[in-house]
């Protein structure tokens, strides 16, 4: 008698519609598209910066278009969604034990949020936004 392992049917392209948590997972996956595209923009920006003042000014002016604004809104939403889910996961990924007890998860994630806020404000200040 042969024993064959159970192979559960799994549609490769539509599996994530089965469960809301799969959809949330996939929505987080999609953020990598916009973050990745934005990273490419950063590399282009570095090239323009190395090419001199005129090239850099043209690069900044080139950002001023309706398409660019839409892309930036999508990239911003993707980056913030990535950041919040990443910080929420830190308490699961690196639990901290002190003596017998674990540090509460909210404290670990909360510390990341505080550091994120401080860092963002400092960078905005250094960049002369306010």
């Amino acid at each position, binding site marked *: 008698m042969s024993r064959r392992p159970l192979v559960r049917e799994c549609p490769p392209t539509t599996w994530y519609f089965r469960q809301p948590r799969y959809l949330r997972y996939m929505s987080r*996956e999609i953020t*990598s598209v916009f973050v990745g595209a934005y*990273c490419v923009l*950063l590399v282009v920006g570095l090239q323009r910066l190395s090419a001199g003042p005129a090239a850099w000014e043209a690069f900044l002016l080139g*950002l001023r278009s309706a398409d660019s604004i839409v892309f930036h809104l999508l990239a911003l939403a993707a980056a913030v969604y990535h*950041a919040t889910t990443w910080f929420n996961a830190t308490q699961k990924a690196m639990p901290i034990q002190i003596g017998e007890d674990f540090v509460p998860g909210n404290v670990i994630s909360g510390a990341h949020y505080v550091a994120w806020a401080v*860092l963002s404000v400092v960078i905005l200040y250094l*960049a002369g936004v306010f």
Partner: protein
Amino acid sequence: MAKSHKPVVWFPFAAGGTVIAFFIPVIVVLTFLAALGHIPAGLSYERMHALAGNGLGKLIIFGVVALSLWSSAHRLRCTCYDFGVRADTLVATVLYVVAIVGSLLSAMYLLQI
């Protein structure tokens, strides 16, 4: 002992995930302001050139760009697989090559400044 090359891929991925979470949102805000026509003073050529001309500045910019690129490449690879593109070797090769070339180009541009 079983050997795996996975840590080599995974460590920069995790480091990149953290770098993206901390740095990319605020950097997007800066270029978004430029897109809206309010270019922050810190994005002027003089200030950006001074930042990228400094050794520590170069290191920070390279770290943020290279780690973000690598992390995004690894995540895009997983995303392709999850959306049903099962040619993983091809996808991984293309994405990692793009990330490595992008990192090398960034280093080259930074060294030219």
